[in-house]
């Protein structure tokens, strides 16, 4: 579904990514791990069009997407969350999700102004779906709370719901468990599994080894912008380069 091939990107003298390749198969949960500064977020930015690679290609469903505008890639079916939340802080939880659905709505300005029956039906459907998504992430009762007023964990879940609202085929989660306690992390892993069961392809970036080991079917390890390992979690965990290069004593026995 997603194919990243030989992608490089540097910022001045800092090489953020060097010749990185990655494949995500349709219907899988894949993870990208690596220490801080390994280039994980840069990789996500390139996939979502928030920057273009200096070399290499990125394909989604066979289409070249590297260097295309972000909104275009979003319309094609890739949605993401951010490591440091990027909700619309002054909008309510419901409005945040409705904004996420924006891309899938069809009505034009004139229809909106005269409120044609078709436009109303579409708006009702959008709201119904937004409530379903709120329900999915357990925020149904917070529908009319401003995003900024939600707890940190709830904001993270809301951001996932907002990403799903655009009905993506590929969901990118950038450190979804960051700052969560172990109980919240378990809840989140369960949520990701639930989303995956609906047929969604998921690619996530994570720090927490325990979290990805239990969740992902495929892992790619980055270190200083280079791919040092790639494979099923068990193989990656036993890869001497991974242990040596960065996991070290952190590796759970």
């Amino acid at each position, binding site marked *: 579904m997603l194919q990243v091939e030989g992608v490089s990107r540097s910022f001045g003298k800092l090489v953020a990514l060097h010749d990185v390749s990655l494949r995500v198969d349709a219907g899988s949960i894949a993870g990208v791990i690596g220490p801080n500064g390994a280039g994980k977020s840069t990789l996500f930015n390139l996939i*979502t*069009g*928030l920057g273009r690679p200096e070399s290499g290609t990125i394909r989604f469903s066979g289409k070249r997407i590297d260097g295309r*505008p*972000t*909104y275009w890639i*979003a*319309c094609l079916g890739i*949605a*993401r969350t*951010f490591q440091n939340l*990027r*909700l*619309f*802080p*002054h*909008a309510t939880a419901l*409005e945040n999700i*409705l*904004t*996420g659905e*924006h*891309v899938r*709505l069809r*009505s034009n*300005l004139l229809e*909106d*102004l005269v409120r044609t029956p078709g436009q109303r039906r579409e708006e009702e459907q959008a709201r119904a779906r937004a409530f379903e998504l709120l329900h999915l992430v357990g925020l149904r009762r917070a529908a009319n709370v401003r995003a900024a007023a939600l707890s940190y964990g709830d904001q993270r879940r809301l951001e996932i719901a*907002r990403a799903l609202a*655009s009905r993506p085929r590929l969901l990118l989660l950038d450190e979804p468990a960051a700052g969560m306690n172990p109980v919240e992390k378990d809840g989140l892993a369960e949520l990701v599994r639930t989303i995956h069961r609906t047929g969604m392809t998921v690619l996530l970036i994570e720090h927490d080894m325990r979290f990805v080991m239990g969740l992902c079917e495929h892992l790619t390890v980055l270190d200083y912008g280079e791919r040092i390992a790639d494979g099923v979690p068990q193989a990656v965990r036993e890869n001497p380069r991974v242990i040596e290069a960065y996991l070290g004593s952190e590796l759970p026995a």
Partner: protein
Amino acid sequence: MHEFFAQLVNGIALGGIYALIALGYTMVYGIIELINFAHGDVYTLGSFFSLTILGALGVSGEVRGPLLIVDVGVTIIGAAMLCGIVGILIERLAYRRLRFAGRLAPLITAIGVSFILENVMQVWRGPSPVAFPAVFPTHIYNVGGVGISLLQLAVVTLAIGTMLLLEFFVHHTRFGQAMRATAQDREAATLMGIDINRTIALTFFVGSALAGLAGFVSGAYYQSTWFFNGFGAGLKAFTAAVLGGIGNLAGAMLGGFLIGIIESFATWKLGGQWSNVTVFTILVLTLVFRPAGLLGEVTPEKV
């Protein structure tokens, strides 16, 4: 007391014009945090476009009956559309490339665009004031001893009607939703599939169209226009936007009416030479004591 109400009516009508201009300042600021100093000149351009259209329609004086609505309607829509297109062009040619260049470069560019527009208009229509046909019947309605003209009623109705339409547009249409999202977080908005270039262009279109509408209204109100009109009116409308809370639509409206009323009373009580002093003193006091503006805190949402 009589004079008091007469001045109040004057101030409200004047304020309606400021409010229409202030909406454009506040919308553009809300979405790209730029004080578009060329906005006042788009307003002047609106009065010149109106003149041209009125000329083409053969209107040179008062119009009565249903023709009034047709002529005024065609002129307003024409002038608003043309100004909207000018607004899009300004954004496309002057501001878009500077979107990531910090705040000073676009600000100075805005001042430059203002000069260009003023000089183009001076070449086009000459350096002296130009007469504007008095399209509205001059009949004055007596409301409790205070004279109100049809024109004054029209100004206030147009301003408030536009404001309501705009509120609906921003809060209940997909484009409005895109605008609000872009104002809050441009990057996140683009990840929601929102084309921010288009959204920003649309914001400029709507804001500039409102300035065009204000240009027609002020031309009809003062029966004259001038290439340099937008400089002073623009600054006062900007003051109105700041007073109401820049980035806030209702605030721009409230600020516009307040500035109009204050200016009108200052002219009456202190004399015309003091009206600008009073208005800009208010700007300074607002910036010092309540930088977020009157409605800035109650509804912090931009656009």
